[in-house]
């Protein structure tokens, strides 16, 4: 394996890990989608909002880093997907902008629109954030209608490297059932995770019972949509590329199934991830145990990591063109240069250090669960 190929695999792993952590952090969105149904009083809602409000910036940062890392390591995907499927990405950005201000502004006097508008912003972001992100990530499995020709930059009449073949610019995802399935999976996964996070972070017996009762309404649809998505994915068609230069791309039935068979470690990871999510849900439902989030959180990371690795490793095209197979993107033809990947790899050595200080800071801040009294006293409460 040459250094470049190793670095391409390494960076796909980093991207996959960031994607998995992003999905984990979507518990903030899941929690936002439940603030109304879990609140009996305004104090209840304040408690939920404040519990989530201490974490929203990390979700945001993970999203930004995920985008930045994709730009840096696989710029051709960044330019093709963002420039082509721009409507769906713009929608995602819009719903995240709404979230960014909602916490800080909701209860502040002078906010012009009133608290209810910002609560609506949280709800919109809570449902549409995971949904749209899931649908956009679904195109890793379903492909998209684009063509790529780098030398088009020299064509006087039409100097465009990546072109979208339809006028819908990303709205095609709404016509693709697999994308819906992944979107809905993320919605219910984020809600499940949010319930477990609340159990860990909120000290209010009534609220905790309400959360446990609510969890069944999330875990059942989650299991349904996960199984539907996995079924559709493994039965679906993918594309692979060869070792020759330039690498020829061929379509392949059951590509993702083959990947799990050829990389059994990923299959174990996927199954373990799903098992931990279900285990966490059982612990939360039966025992109201705050440790549920550790099971379901680590399960989520394993599950999404396995999915993401299965779509990019093993000579698989991670972004299949539905109109010109040879334009399909894989980690070999869309990555940055060896120099850049290597330079960034040195920086990536900071990631364990970053994870360590995040963990430490969280532990310090969350050492005592949130109470209504604490929020009433806090000058900076959301």
């Amino acid at each position, binding site marked *: 394996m040459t250094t470049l190929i190793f670095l391409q695999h390494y960076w796909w792993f980093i991207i996959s890990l960031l994607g998995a952590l992003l999905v984990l952090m979507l518990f903030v969105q899941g929690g936002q989608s439940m603030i109304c149904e879990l609140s009996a009083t305004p104090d209840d809602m304040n408690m939920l909002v404040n519990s989530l409000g201490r974490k929203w*910036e*990390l979700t*945001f*940062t993970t999203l*930004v*880093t995920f*985008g*930045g*890392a994709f*730009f*840096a*390591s696989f*710029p*051709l995907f*960044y*330019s*093709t997907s*963002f*420039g082509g499927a*721009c409507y769906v*990405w*713009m929608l995602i*950005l819009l719903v*995240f*902008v709404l979230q*960014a*201000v909602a916490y800080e*502004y909701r209860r*502040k*006097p*002078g906010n*012009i629109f009133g608290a209810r508008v910002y609560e609506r912003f949280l709800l919109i972001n809570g449902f549409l954030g995971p949904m749209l992100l899931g649908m956009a990530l679904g195109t890793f499995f379903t492909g998209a209608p684009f063509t790529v*020709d780098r*030398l088009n*930059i*020299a*064509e*006087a009449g*039409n*100097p465009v*490297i*990546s*072109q*979208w073949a339809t006028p819908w*610019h990303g709205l095609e995802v709404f016509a693709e059932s697999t994308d819906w399935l992944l979107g809905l999976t993320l919605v219910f996964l984020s809600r499940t995770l949010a319930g477990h996070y609340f159990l860990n972070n909120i000290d209010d017996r009534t609220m905790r019972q309400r959360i446990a009762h609510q969890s069944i309404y999330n875990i059942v649809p989650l299991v349904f949509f996960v199984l539907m998505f996995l079924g559709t994915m493994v039965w679906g068609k993918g594309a692979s590329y060869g070792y020759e230069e330039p690498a020829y791309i061929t379509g392949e039935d059951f590509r993702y199934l083959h990947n799990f068979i050829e990389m059994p470690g990923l299959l174990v990871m996927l199954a373990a991830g799903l098992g931990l999510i279900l285990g966490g849900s059982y612990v939360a439902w039966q025992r109201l145990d705050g440790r549920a989030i550790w099971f379901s959180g680590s399960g989520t990371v394993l599950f999404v990591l396995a999915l993401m690795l299965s779509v990019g490793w093993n000579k698989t095209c991670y972004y299949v063109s539905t109109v010109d197979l040879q334009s399909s993107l894989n980690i070999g033809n869309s990555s*940055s*240069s060896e120099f*850049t990947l290597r330079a*960034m790899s040195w920086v990536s050595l*900071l990631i364990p250090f*970053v994870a360590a200080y*995040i963990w430490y*800071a*969280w532990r*310090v*801040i969350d050492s*005592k669960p949130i109470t209504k009294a604490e929020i009433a006293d*806090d*000058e*900076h409460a959301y």
Partner: protein
Amino acid sequence: MNDILQTVDWSRAQFALTAIYHWLFVPLTLGLSVLCAIMETFYVRTCDPYWRITARFWMRLFGVNFAIGVATGLILEFEFGTNWSNYSYFVGDIFGAPLAIEGIMAFFLESTFIAVMFFGWDKVSRRFHLAATWLTAIGANLSALWILVANAWMQHPVGCTFNLETVRNEMTSFWEVLFSPVAINKFVHTVTSSFVLAALFVVGVSAWYLLRNRELLVARRSIAVASYFGLFFSLVAAMSGDRSGAVIARTQPMKLAAMEALYDGEQGAPLTVIGGFRPETQRRSGEEFYFKIDIPRLLSVMSFRDADAYVAGINDLVWGNPKHGIMSVSEKMRRGKVAVAELDRYRRARAERDRAAMNEIAAKFDPSTVEGETFLTEYFAYFGYGYLKAPTDAVPHIPLLFFSFRVMVGLGLLFIALFAALCWYAWHDVLSRDKCRWLLLAAVWSVPLAYAASQAGWIVAEVGRQPWAIQDMMPVGIAVSKLPSASVIVTFFIFLALFTGLLAAEIGIMMKQIQKGPDKR
């Protein structure tokens, strides 16, 4: 105007809109985070509860401002992909790396410790809280470093080479990108001028309290800290601005000429303090202004540290000046078109699988051969010019640059004087509405002026780069995504409405919080 030209203009407008809104919030975040950290340091060192009250008050305003800065920043990052697709691929190998490093190194630091800063007062020790506040400030300013390195590279691309196989520019030296003189100056100038804005915000709000005879202790302490801080950093900003001018004279001479509205180059060129432009149709050589006030030779001194140095004018740069070794834009366009044509020939040869032609062209792009080195330096270096339609396309908007530059510099000098006066009054402990009402009023009015200066600075930096997305390498017309103009127009107005609504909300909240004053609990 055809659709692609409209797309280019609307994409520029959308990016400018997002950048302008983003830059309304970021400078305050950068500077106020450091000021909060300094005030909290005083609290930890003295255990004086009033320092705690003071620090917490400014943190509250910091929080309101921070959220919307984050929101607009997200849009900006992804607009590189959505609106500038060709750009994202053509230079993504270099440009993407600072963005990724920014996320890993800076954003996580900021977003993790900001939670401790806001919510950890009664949960962690005083020293740990202070460390969290400083780490938040460091994270915010580190993020500025990386995005400014990326921006500096667009102004002055270094540390890269063109790879024909991948048809893009690729990084060859990370350190050259990070430590380019443009990057260093840009970072120092941008961050220090942000500190100045934040210092003016603090003195402005505090002066308002003193004029109303309320929150006297908090206001006086805040003014004392912010005016020394502001004076120091406004002097650093002035020095780095001067240094930036000298760097621009070498790297972006057209930007300098346009900033100065210097049409014809001069030996011992004067610096125009202010002038009144004639309408474009009436501007003739030597008669561009109705009136102007010059300082003799100062532009030569500032640009080349030599009172007799020749400073190139717009006409020299557009039409060439062989006496001073300045190549005309038309010659650069000719050479750029040769480079584009070679690339197009390679495209056709590849389509026809003509190996011999491909190898012949590839040799021209190989920097390890003499032929390749010559072609890359003599022709490919002007690649971007190959897309220009006329030599005058290389000239940015002169009046906008001329006046923006003067607004920035003029206000910057005014702020130095204001800070110096405030320092004097703070030192003698005579800050009150009875003894320096005029100065306090000036401090209040300096807040909007600080924002005007800050925006003017970015207009100079970004409008001065036009028509280039990447200086000499890629004009904006080639960098753009192929989108229908109608869709960009729709998103432009959506963002305009959204950002304006959120800005109004932010101002409303800020006003209320300031009226409410510090929480004395």
